[in-house]
């Protein structure tokens, strides 16, 4: 099918974009990379009165860092992040997860901010934002505010962003050197929506695990942290028994749905399997 008619705007700045959005009183949609919104418009699942295209706003595409935090403009393409040395050095978990985000031709257009704002339950970038405890910067009529990952994702395709707010920046804490990390995902075809995925970040001190962060995709209405599993690893370390217990906990924390790609029980099972695999992969000696 073809999209319904809409009025088209190409603001050159965030201020201009916000002014245009305000004029439509919630009936306009922001267009970032378009890899989710345009299919919805082609199917006429979305029929916005106007499109505010952010693709001409140069100030929203950048990657920068001042030591502990990597700052990424919301319109930065996923593909640029995939090949960016700063991401490889400071956010290797994000880099690994990006290989699971759609395909190279969709990553050419898809943006980090668009993926977060869309909040697909199976999307990998929200999962990374959760695992790394990142935050976003949003601007709206009332000015600028920061929203932590744990306060952002409410339900499928639903965030705590206000209708007239735009994500301008994504802030991810740089991963300390020697942080163990891994992404494990199961999908029918690489690049398809995740049936289940788990991202793991572990900070170790000898035999102990001083910090464990585990987050999911595909197994709850929105990406969630596996806090019980994290607690097991932080209290009991990374022994075989502790990893098994954490994986069992993970299965009880998720809230999956059944659909064509898998039943809720299957997704729950996969959560345990992928949690275990991700932790083992993260702590495996480098080859």
């Amino acid at each position, binding site marked *: *099918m*073809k*999209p*319904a*008619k*809409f*009025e*088209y705007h190409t603001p050159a700045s965030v201020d201009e974009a916000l002014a245009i959005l305000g004029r439509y009183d919630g009936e306009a949609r922001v267009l970032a990379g*378009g*890899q989710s919104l*345009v*299919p919805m*418009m*082609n*199917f006429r699942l979305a029929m916005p009165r106007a*499109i505010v*295209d952010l*693709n001409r706003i140069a100030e929203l595409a950048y990657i920068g860092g001042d030591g502990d935090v990597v700052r990424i403009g919301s319109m930065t393409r996923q*593909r640029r992040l995939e*090949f960016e040395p700063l991401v490889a050095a400071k956010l290797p978990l994000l880099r690994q997860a990006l290989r699971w985000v*759609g*395909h*190279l*031709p*969709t990553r*050419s*257009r898809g943006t980090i901010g668009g993926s977060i704002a869309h909040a697909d339950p199976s999307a990998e970038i929200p999962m990374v934002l959760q695992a790394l405890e990142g935050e976003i910067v949003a601007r709206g009529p009332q000015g600028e505010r920061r929203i932590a990952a744990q306060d952002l994702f409410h339900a499928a395709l639903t965030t705590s962003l206000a209708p007239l707010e735009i994500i301008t920046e994504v802030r991810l804490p740089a991963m300390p050197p020697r942080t163990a990390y891994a992404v494990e995902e199961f999908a029918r*075809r*690489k*690049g398809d929506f995740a049936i289940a995925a788990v991202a793991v970040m572990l900070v170790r001190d000898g035999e102990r695990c001083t910090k464990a962060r585990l987050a999911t995709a595909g197994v709850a209405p929105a990406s969630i942290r596996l806090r019980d599993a994290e607690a097991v690893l932080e209290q009991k370390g990374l022994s075989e028994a502790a990893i098994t217990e954490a994986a069992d906990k993970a299965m009880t924390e998720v809230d999956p749905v059944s659909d064509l790609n898998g039943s809720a029980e299957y997704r729950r099972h996969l959560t345990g399997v992928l949690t275990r695999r991700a932790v083992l992969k993260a702590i495996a000696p480098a080859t």
Partner: protein
Amino acid sequence: MSEVREVRLTVNGKSYQGRCEPRKLLVDFVREDLGLTGTHIGCEHGICGACTILFNGEAARSCLMFAVQAQGAELVTVEGLAKGDELHPLQQAFHEHHALQCGFCTPGMLIAALDFLATNPAPTEDEIREGISSVLCRCTGYVNIVKAVAAAAETMRAANAPKLGA
């Protein structure tokens, strides 16, 4: 009533201009307004990859963009691959390895493979399979496409390698 916009862009090195509504998909603009029907349109929601083109040098789904977004852009479509009668190494390899049957996915497959080889000039078989996974083919079973991309990669590497004694 939606206004009509003018779109100026470059396709395969040649300047074009046309007029369309903002809702017109880039793939429809390329096919209907510019008359370049080599790019195919399949699913219209970003899954099949038949409409893959190079947008400012990078592969992208032309069914997931509006033509107005291509204002000032440089596109490469399948028509831009051959030089006159001389096929592009990828096209030659697809021909030699019987990597197409009905040919519907082929324009997208060639462009996706071109972009993939630009990012990974010496891929393993697994990497090729992942690289072309963005385009669906219902005829070949992919085996011959994988062979063709591997062969083209070798040809393109040899063509780009510094000559001995140069």
